[in-house]
């Protein structure tokens, strides 16, 4: 066994600790270097993770899996982390002296996600999940002076803890039936008992909470709205993707479809999620809340891939999760810029953005369209994979619901575009986003368009990653 296989995890843990200490050691002014330090270190870790992409090992008796599937998500998380930190930009000035802790909590949340993606065993998975979630509790409530932020933190804490309890109870029931918590060993011990099914449903609930499937989505809008924007972004992108990674691994490997038709169950949940998420998003006026409902709907789309339970579908899950990072981060980065500039997260704050900063408006539009699944953005390719999978698996109705709702979703995405392009604003001064945020925006745009126009490489990566399930 080689420790290099765990180098990503180790590096992240080290980075988190170093940043924490660096914050203590550095004088207040010197803390500005923390952003570049964090970004450069994460870039390094990204390269490290890329190097280990094809490695496939089972560590600690199967408790920890190093495989392309996990690696794919690790890259995703680290990329999301980099983008979040870049796009946070001037927003972080509100955290004043506590900014150093912000970085290290981000890194620890990242570590939690990475553990979740690679966990080969339910309790390990739980540890990763809790590491991530607890970090997020703190991050959500980071603006303690802000009533909304604190309230969001508390709500998240209560509901999160409740869902962990449910998840754990499910794990314990499954453990009771199969006698093991190692995912790879569970299928062999699988037996169709009421307790087992109750356990599966409870585990499903736990994950569904994290990925905000209806009716376990209720926390998301409130928390997304209350949390600081960078945290919201990371929550929407990272925590959701981590839950997907874990969920795919657990469900595909541990629970054979032949004995319990959980895809049908998920299909129903996905359909409800897509419909409800999109419908409520139609009437939202706060950009963060709108993106929250949008991300609920997006979760529904991604679940379609898991429902399909075949090459296209699983590939779609991975592909979509990755493009979702870029598209969603682009939208959030733009929202961050607007909030920093106007102090508001209302859609009205976007009025006239196309004149104040055409670049930001254009990128925001492209990212939104990607979320809506309009070509030539990556979102379209992702949906194409997901729904190809669904149709192949004979879930035609689901494809209908999904695609029609996704076209309806264009309405609220365009509502934002409309505000940007024809809204009028008293303040017409030009907005100049900082270099870091600008870079993040451009990366998001590049990712969104590149994966849309030339999906081949990413598709291949995803193909390699899902080999372990086939």
């Amino acid at each position, binding site marked *: 066994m080689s420790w290099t296989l765990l180098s990503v995890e180790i590096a992240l843990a080290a980075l988190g600790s170093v940043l924490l200490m660096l914050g203590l050691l550095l004088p207040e002014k010197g803390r500005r270097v923390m952003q570049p330090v964090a970004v450069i270190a994460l870039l390094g870790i990204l390269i490290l993770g890329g190097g280990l992409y094809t490695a496939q090992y089972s560590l600690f008796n199967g408790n920890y899996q190093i495989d392309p599937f996990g690696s794919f998500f690790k890259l995703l998380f680290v990329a999301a982390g980099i983008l979040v930190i870049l796009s946070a930009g001037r927003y972080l000035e509100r955290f004043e002296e506590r900014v150093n802790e912000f970085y290290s909590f981000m890194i620890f949340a990242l570590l939690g996600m990475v553990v979740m993606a690679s966990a080969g065993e339910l309790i390990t998975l739980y540890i990763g999940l809790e590491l991530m979630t607890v970090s997020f509790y703190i991050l959500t409530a980071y603006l303690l002076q802000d009533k909304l932020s604190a309230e969001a933190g508390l709500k998240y804490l209560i509901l999160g803890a409740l869902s962990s309890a449910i998840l754990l109870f499910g794990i314990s029931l499954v453990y009771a039936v199969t006698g093991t918590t190692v995912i790879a060993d569970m299928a062999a011990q699988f037996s169709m008992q009421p307790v087992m099914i*109750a356990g599966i*449903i409870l585990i499903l609930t736990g994950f569904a909470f994290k990925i905000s499937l209806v009716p376990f989505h209720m926390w998301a809008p409130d928390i997304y709205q209350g949390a600081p924007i960078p945290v919201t972004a990371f929550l929407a992108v990272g925590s959701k993707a981590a839950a997907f990674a874990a969920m795919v691994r657990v469900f595909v490997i541990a629970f054979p479809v032949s004995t319990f038709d959980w895809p049908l*169950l998920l299909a*129903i949940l996905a359909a409800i999620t897509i419909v409800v998420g999109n419908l409520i998003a139609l009437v939202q006026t706060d950009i963060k809340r709108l993106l929250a409902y949008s991300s609920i709907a997006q979760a529904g789309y991604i679940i379609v891939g898991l429902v399909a339970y075949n090459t296209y579908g699983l590939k779609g899950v991975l592909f979509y999760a990755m493009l979702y990072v870029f598209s969603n981060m682009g939208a959030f980065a733009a929202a961050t810029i607007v909030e920093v500039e106007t102090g508001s997260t209302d859609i009205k704050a976007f009025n006239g953005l196309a004149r104040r900063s055409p670049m930001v408006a254009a990128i925001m539009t492209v990212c939104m369209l990607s979320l809506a699944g309009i070509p030539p953005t990556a979102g379209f390719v992702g949906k194409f994979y997901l729904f190809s999978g669904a149709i192949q698996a004979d879930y035609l109705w689901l494809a209908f619901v999904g695609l029609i709702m996704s076209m309806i979703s264009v309405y609220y995405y365009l509502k934002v575009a409309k505000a940007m392009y024809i809204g009028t604003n008293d303040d017409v001064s030009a907005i100049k986003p900082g270099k870091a945020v600008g870079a993040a925006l451009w990366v998001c745009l590049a990712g969104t368009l590149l994966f849309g126009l030339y999906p081949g490489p990413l598709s291949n990566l995803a193909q390699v990653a899902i080999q372990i399930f086939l």
Partner: protein
Amino acid sequence: MFAWSLELAWLIVLLPFAAFALIGLFLHRWPRLSAYLSILAIGLSFGLSVLVAAHVFLGGMQETFEVSMRWLAMPGLNVDMGLLIDGLTAVMLIVVTSVALLVQIYSWGYMHGDPGFSSYYAYQSVFAGAMLGLVLANNFGQLFVFWELVGLASYLLIGFWFGRHSAKNAAVKAFITNRVGDFGLLLGILFLQIIFGTLNFSGLAAEVAGYTNTAILIVVSILLLAGPIGKSAQFPLHVWLPDAMEGPTPVSALIHAATMVAAGVYLIARAFFIFSATPEVMMLIAVIGGFTALFAATIALVQNDIKRILAYSTLSQLGYMVMAMGIGAMTAGMFHLMTHAFFKSLLFLAAGSVIHAIAGEQDIWKMGRLKDKMPITTWTFVIGALALAGIPPLSGFWSKDEILLGAFAGGYTGLYLLGTLVAFMTAFYMFRLIFVVFFGSGKGVEKAHESPPVMTIPLIILAVMAVIAGFVGSPLMDYAFARFVTYPGAVHYEASTMVIAISSLVAIAGIGLAWAIYQKEWINHLQMRERFSGIYTLLYNKYYIDELYHWLGQRFVYGTAKALFWFDIYVVNGLVNGLAALTGGAGKVLRYTETGQVQTYAAYMLAGVIVIVGLVVLAGFALLI
């Protein structure tokens, strides 16, 4: 003899079109040049037509000449553009080109100084080209194309003075009414294409001869007939023609008297092989024609507008021709078409000369004693009227007589009597017009003056034609006309002295009555009007047909339009908006599930778990059972 002229016959069509294109693209800033070009083009066409006709008639060409090129080709459908030259064509060529040439020359004077002088000549060229294309067509596709183009030219020329509401509306009315007819014609053509797979006249003639399904043929003929009814303004699609008098008078002369309106008659003649295959339709044609002849003549009796009187007279005469077709006297009908073209265009041009002279006035009661001021116009008009009334030996006499003979000898006694009655009326209303306008006791119009030579010379030429054109078909020249313009199986009736005598007497009687009333005023026409005010009003208002159509149009067409628009806005759009509102409304309702109360959220979650468990349990039970 002039066989080479046949090879150049395509130029007859092309020259006017070329003139149109040149004027439209380059010359519209130079009115004189435009006019020269247009006249030159039609002149050349005329020359060629004369050569062609000479070849056909004098050279004794017995076979038809036909060339064509592919115009629209795809598997299963071919439409050619071609030329078909036989006696029928040759006659039409001569008529069209000669009248067109004279009218264009006349227009030089009539339209002088009009701001749209160039456009006028451009439109005239388009018309001439289209009409010639129609006449020369060797298949129904081409015929329809030019048929519609003729309609376009008519539309443009009627609406030439587009600044006037009435002209604008008349143009639209003409086009739409014609469209209704074209609708039938097009369907008929479609039927022909589908049934026989060809649109070529000679091809069709061969096919129809061997076709036995009479029902289909009747349907096809009736559909085809709709075209002529529209174009030749037969009842019930006649309403456009009187209104078309809103156009410049030379236009009325050329298009709405001599040529275009005759296109319908020409079509019947050309497609005679189809119509004659179905006696029922032939009867229908005869009845429509006869009815129109009478119907229009009665209206003409009481009209006051000089051009409208002529217009109703034209309707009536067209009815004559159509009736001739219907009773199988195709040759006579074509003969009348030719003579009518000359004398009616003469009448119109002379009327135009009058109108021109007295500054656009068209009410006959505001004219009077014009013979002193405008001798040439007066006497040419009288010649035209005599020809129209059928006084021997003018052209109208011979041709009308042929038709009456056909009806009489063919056993259509009712139609014969009707025709005779119409002849009487014709003579009456024409001379009512003449006595009121040219002779009469009125004070006369002070500023009236004779028109310039450029206008009177065409009048004189046409007057000569009106006198002599009839001889080609008369017994005196051994029915030369009938030898060339005929159809297989035509029966020729020997002239009957009785028919000749009766029609002549009737005409003279009509003239005499008019003389008595309007010249000598032995009978006070105003009192007559009082006494028969019911009939008078009915006739004066053209049997209220226009009003009926107008009412129908408003009620049904626009009513339906409004209703459908309402439907579109409130039902079709309403559904769309309703769905959108429903979607949005659902969103609005659903958003209130987010109460902000964290424990409610927890309750939803647990409820979700319970529902899922319940579903699975139910599904499990279902599986167990």
